[in-house]
């Protein structure tokens, strides 16, 4: 066998191992969890085993799926608002320093105030669904704003000089220089905002949940807690985690596809 062939085999082997090893660890962890629950006879209302959680996930799927959908829609609305609002505000700040000085403190205030503390107020002032989306927006928009602002101001100085030399208008500089240069930063901000929007939505749903009419996944978790339906609580938690992972994965994929031809972050080690 040639040297190249051997290397090819070992690469394929490494790839297989890199998939197999985490899977083995996962199965082992689940098995230990299940065994601990069974051997100690822990009742399900204290700690359900993974099999029971899975069973509950299947049996309660109709209720849980409906709730998941509600939460995901809230998250998506909050995320879109955060993305549009964050990018738009950063563009505005980039064009006018005065606006930035005047408005940036409020963005920081929104960011540093815990959303769980604002949610009850918002629920008083706004219709419930609007309040929940607003919470998702508040949490998500700051990373988009600050990342976009950073990206817009990280333009190569000589490239900026070149645009000046060729008499580029403000709009041309923005469209052909600043926005493309900021794209990796914007995508990084969006990746953070995706997960945060989900957190914002869940927090707001829990705050709203005590008021009654909620139907999102977080409401199911709170409700299951009151009823000591711990297996369903776990099932809802699993769904939330999976939703978070999928959102992050999707945004990472979009980022990779957009940047793969030019940005360092998306290039393989070989390049």
């Amino acid at each position, binding site marked *: 066998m040639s040297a190249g062939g051997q290397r090819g085999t070992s690469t394929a082997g490494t790839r297989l191992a890199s998939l197999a090893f985490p899977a083995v660890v996962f199965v082992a962890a689940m098995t230990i969890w299940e065994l601990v629950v069974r051997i100690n006879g822990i009742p399900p209302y204290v700690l359900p085993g993974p099999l029971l959680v899975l069973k509950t996930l299947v049996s309660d799927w109709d209720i849980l799926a409906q709730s998941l959908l509600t939460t995901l829609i809230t998250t998506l609305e909050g995320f879109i608002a955060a993305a549009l609002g964050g990018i738009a505000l950063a563009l505005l700040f980039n064009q006018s320093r005065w606006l930035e000085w005047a408005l940036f403190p409020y963005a920081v205030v929104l960011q540093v105030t815990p959303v769980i503390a604002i949610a009850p107020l918002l629920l008083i002032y706004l219709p419930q669904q609007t309040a929940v989306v607003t919470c998702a927006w508040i949490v998500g928009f700051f990373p988009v704003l600050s990342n976009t602002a950073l990206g817009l101001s990280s333009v190569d100085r000589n490239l900026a*000089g070149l645009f000046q030399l*060729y*008499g580029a208008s403000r709009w041309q500089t923005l469209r052909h220089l600043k926005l*493309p240069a900021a794209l990796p930063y914007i995508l990084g901000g969006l990746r953070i905002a995706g997960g945060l929007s989900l957190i914002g939505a869940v927090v707001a749903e829990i705050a709203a949940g005590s008021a009654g009419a909620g139907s999102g996944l977080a409401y199911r978790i709170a409700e299951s807690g009151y009823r000591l339906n711990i297996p369903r609580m776990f099932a809802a938690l699993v769904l939330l985690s999976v939703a978070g992972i999928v959102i992050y994965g999707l945004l990472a994929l979009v980022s990779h596809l957009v940047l793969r031809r030019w*940005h360092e972050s998306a290039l393989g080690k070989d*390049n």
Partner: protein
Amino acid sequence: MSSSPSSERAAGLAVRMRGVTKVYDSGVAALGPIDLAVRTGEFVSLLGPSGCGKSTALRLIAGLASPSSGSLDVAASTSTTHAGHRIGFVFQEPTLMPWTSVRDNVGLPLKLSHVPAVEARPRIDAALAQVGLADFADAFPRELSGGMKMRASLARALVTRPDILLMDEPFAALDEITRFRLNDDLLALWRSLNMTVLFVTHSVFESVYLSQRVLVMTARPGRLSAEIGIEAETRDDAFRASAAYAEYCRRVSDALAPAYTGVHAL
């Protein structure tokens, strides 16, 4: 910047600086006072130690910064279109946009001045052919070698068919063989395109090989300390190996040496 087109054109001057100084906002005196004249169609090198203000001088001529005092006339800037169309600028780094193809990078000056795509395309292709990158139009900058990136940068400067080409240590980061090749290609382009070239470098050898006149600058704030005309029948390996070339290099080195005394002394 004051401009008096007719008189400068009549005198055949592309660039004229009289008592020009540049003091940065920080209070650092970067340049001058400097008096400098470059004739239309001339190839002039500006040679000096790092930080002497040669790059600043180029940025002033390009209009990227304004002089603190003195008068600066650039014949090209009086053309009917924007100054940028008549001036090409090549930076020390290739300064390409990494997110788009070589073609789009080279076509940038045309796009910024709203040249229709139909008209721009053949001009971009011509510029790419001039620098030998015709086959790499669709490549992305990161796929090119250092020399090829510099060629793309040069093509971008040439695409507007500039009267004056300003080059700021363009080949300083390249290996010697690549630099020699680019030097020869640049000379060929200069001859065929009828441009004025103002070439900033800190290499004595490069300045002697390329230019008709070497202007030597002092340490910061840079002033002109010497002017050495280089006369050569041809510019090729034979010239590089000739006694005349060695003699020019020695003279230029001697003229440059005082700039390295003081803080630069070893």
